[in-house]
């Protein structure tokens, strides 16, 4: 019962960890390169949540200096994650570009088929 309470109290972390693990699993388990990249993106996105969740304060406003509001969310993690999102987009774009080039060079983006074709030559 106590464990359940801890899980419910920290449900946002549970979601984060679930996303993180499923992303990592997809990267490891799938041979298709686009699917691998999807997994990688899920993995990265879970980290965005890890940063954003603790920064949001219930009932807090946007971080604007105004005497009427004393409770506001921490702006720093949001800014950090904006940077991380840009990095994530760049990585995904480069990964997809490589997948296109691999498809042109090998005629497939399935990892096992690619290894097979390399072994033939």
């Amino acid at each position, binding site marked *: 019962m106590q464990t359940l309470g801890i899980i419910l109290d920290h449900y946002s972390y549970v979601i984060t960890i679930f996303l993180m693990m499923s992303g990592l699993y997809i990267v490891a388990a799938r041979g298709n*390169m686009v699917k*691998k990249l999807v997994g990688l993106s899920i993995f990265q996105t879970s*980290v965005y949540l890890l*940063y954003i969740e603790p920064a949001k304060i219930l009932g807090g406003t946007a971080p604007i200096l105004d005497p009427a509001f004393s409770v506001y969310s921490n702006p720093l993690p949001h800014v950090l994650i904006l940077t991380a999102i840009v990095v994530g987009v*760049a*990585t995904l774009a480069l*990964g997809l570009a*490589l997948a296109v080039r691999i498809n042109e*060079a090998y005629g497939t983006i399935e990892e096992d088929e690619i290894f097979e074709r390399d072994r033939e030559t």
Partner: protein
Amino acid sequence: MNAVWAHLPILIVLVPLFGALLAGFARRADPAFAIALVVSWVIPFCAGAMLWQVLASGPISYHLGSWAPPWGIEYRVDALNAFVLMLVSMIGAVTMPFARRSVGFEIEEGQRPWFYCMYLLCLTGLLGIAVTGDAFNAFVFLEISSLSTYVLIALGRDRRALLAAFQYLIMGTIGATFYVVGVGLLYLMTGSLNMVDIAARLGPAWADNSRTIIAALAFVTVGVSLKLALFPLHVWLPNAYSYAPSWATAFLSATATKVAIYLLVRFLFSIFGVAIDLRALPVAAIIIGLSLAAMYIASLIAVFQSSLSRMLAYSSVAQIGYITLGIGFVNLAGLTGGLVHIVNHALMKAALFLAVGAVFFRARTVQLDDLAGIGRKMPITMTAFTVACFGLIGTPGTSGFISKWYLALGAIERGWWLVVFLIVGSSLIALIYVGRVLEIAWLREPSAAVAEARDPPLSMLAPLVLLAAATIYFGFDTEWTAGIASTTAKGLLGGLR
């Protein structure tokens, strides 16, 4: 002059960054190469000036945009950073002249300016990781260097280069993301991203949240270890180094993994080690175990390779094992050995991979079977190669001996005689894989494949000979390598709890 002097920490990042923009706009190979050359030759002066300043008057703290730390981003240069900055910039400066012909030979004309653009971006990232004192800023630079590295590898001549780049992209991104998770947990615990500030706040947080901090330590260590190719997280490295363009391999093997090692040292000794007693955790034991495994398993795999570049790639994994072994000893001699081997291995491996590039330039093959008698056809190239090989084994009179000497001293100081024997024993395996190549290159009759080969032009030969000469020079005069490494190690160990 004073205006420039005060801004050296940011200039060392901005100069290659704007160089990359210009090289991208140049659209033709020669102007792009000229830009890369100028940038590569300017940067060592920045790094040298900072090293001099640090050794003379202590750490430099540069506040980006004049925002005071810990709120603003701080670039903090102490002896360790300055040492790494100097290494990266010197490798870039020395190897750059080699690039023009090697890149001209291996890469299609339209892609050449982009190659130089990517090299400069990679340089930006590597120097940025070394110069910054902000944990998240280090992540951004890590990704700048990584993304450009993936492109550099993908520009390789073989279609397998694409696959190697893709695999490295997946593993590198996982590593970088692990690092961000670790930094995020540290931020949750301390509310700060400034490395010095984290170190100061982590100690008080340890009492209540030791589990989170251990998780942060684990995430950062594993993430950075992926980047530095610590065994068994090295699987991306052999393919990446074998199929990347020759010059890119030489540059990356000498700098990229070394900067990642710097980041590991920074986190273990300047952040976690300062705040908590790492001896209570099995960090050092794990690092030593994996290092020994790297030294033996990777060396053994190297013995059975049929391609010269692949053999050297596995040798890199083994040599990184020596560096992390020294870090794991956590004593003055061991850490000095690890740090000094960062420089010594960088010089040797750059020389070896440049020699491979020169061989490919003339003989169009790096398969060992084809290279019989190459020494007689390319005597200067292969002499430089041989000298660097002796360094790899750790023969007295080369810089490799100095590193192993300090590592053995570190092990003796700990009283671990078995490790001392293991260090010597792994050198014998290096002797086998190196000896095999030297036998093929020097003692056999030249094969048909190398009949037309001869030494490459001066622009390729000079960097190679210079690096090989440095391998011997630093075997005798150790003031600039072991001297600074020892000062640095003393500073790092003095800060430990």
